[in-house]
């Protein structure tokens, strides 16, 4: 009488399936523990980056609320202009340029002169300067801007921009960084300029 093959019973099939699921996890854990550079996650992240590189994340700028009266056409202009100001900072401070690098000499376009001076002393947070030498590439994952607009006389007078930027870094400093907070803008010399900020930055490795 032929013995029933263990793989043919439902329980055995389940056991085999679970083992198939478990073994790669164990293997991954072991290989990462002994040689972090060879961790399979890194390779898969690289694949994600390659995919996203052809579809870069766009900034989503929305208006949360307008205090005062502002015609729709002007709301759209403010949304576009302030979105561009935030984008220019993000690109100069975190996303753009070549890596690795340690110098961020023009990281604050769109800031007032005084705010730029303040921001320079907070470069560790407001740019990628601290880890820039250990970063090979940066890829944005999420970019969003939400605006509170103050308007009088049908003109926008000030904007609070609530911003969230999330990006992945590759290289020795691999991980995900989130920059979140508020930027304060007023119009100076015909353009929206950042005169203040309240920003936090966190990194997950």
């Amino acid at each position, binding site marked *: 009488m032929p013995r*029933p093959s*263990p793989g043919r019973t439902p329980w055995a099939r389940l056991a085999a399936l679970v083992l198939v699921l478990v073994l790669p996890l164990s293997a991954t*854990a072991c290989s990462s523990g002994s040689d972090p550079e060879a961790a399979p996650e890194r390779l898969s992240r690289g694949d994600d980056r390659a995919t996203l590189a052809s579809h870069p994340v766009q900034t989503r700028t929305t208006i949360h609320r307008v205090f005062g009266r502002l015609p729709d056409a002007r709301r759209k202009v403010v949304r576009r202009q302030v979105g561009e100001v935030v984008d220019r900072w993000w690109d100069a401070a975190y996303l753009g340029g070549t890596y690795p690098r340690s110098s961020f000499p023009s990281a604050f376009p769109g800031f007032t002169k005084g705010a730029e001076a303040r921001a320079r002393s907070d470069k*560790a947070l407001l740019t990628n300067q601290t880890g820039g030498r250990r970063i090979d590439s940066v890829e944005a994952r999420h970019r969003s801007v939400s605006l509170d607009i*103050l308007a009088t006389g049908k003109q926008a007078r000030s904007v*609070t921009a609530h911003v969230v930027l999330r990006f992945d870094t590759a290289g020795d400093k691999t991980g995900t960084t989130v920059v979140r907070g508020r930027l304060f803008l007023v*119009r100076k010399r015909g353009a929206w300029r950042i005169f203040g900020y309240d920003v936090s930055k966190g990194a*997950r*490795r």
Partner: protein
Amino acid sequence: MTGFVTRARVVRGVRAAALAAVLAVTALVVPQGAVQPTEMSLVKIRHAQGVSVGDDVVWILAVGSDARPGEDMTRSRGDALQMVGINTRTGSATAIGVPRDSWVSIPGHGREKINSALYFSGPRGMAGAMRNLVGIEPDYVMVTRFPFFEDMVDDIGGITVTNPRRFYDPYLKKEGFRKGRIHLGGYDAMAFSRIRKGLVGGDFDRSANQQRTLRGIHARIRAQADRPGFIERGVMTVMEHMATNADPGELYELAQAVAQVDPRRITTCVVRGRVGFVGAASVVFPDVAQARRLGRDARSDAALRRC
């Protein structure tokens, strides 16, 4: 027999599956940091804030007008007088209080009580009188009246002040204010800032109470500044109810600067003086030397070392 063997294999299969499931769950639940120290750990969160509104230090003359309904509040007497400095570079702030009956030189009007400078010459005249006394020319003058002040305090949810002594007023606050940390709504904040007769130090203690009120307002603004729209609503309210030489954009800048002041870096002093009479009028002869010293001390950094 065959049935027994089959059942035994099934049992072994179940055990194996259970063990595998436990291992699988363990692999998923145990933090990967145990075997992958560089993965999935929150490394660091840092925070930075800064505001620049032109010069590092901005001076605002805050005036509480005693205008009654129907009166122009910028052409009435200034009852509460506080010269407020904000240092946007260091996050410090200061308030120099001046008793309203201080006998001072008012530009173009000779010597009068300082509270009449608003009546004679408007906000600009009041700024000139304060400059003559303290030696600081304010960048902005903001004048408000009691009803708006009460509404504003109510709008921000009331304030908490530290009251150094119990006091009361038979007209404004019969039951009085107890000593200690007390929460004040709009009316009580107004009464707390206006009452003079129940205070041993009279006008000087009242000015100090106004500074306690300012600290309470600042604490509320700072606590809520990151709520979307809080600052914008505040600026709209100020524009509606206050007379000021600041435009909406400047008000917004000032509000953000106020929100970033560090409460541990707030210093306050009241200009001292001697109570006397000019004719039949009771006045305060201010200690001009002290007032000038306070001005010199705080002008460049909005910080007072001593009163």
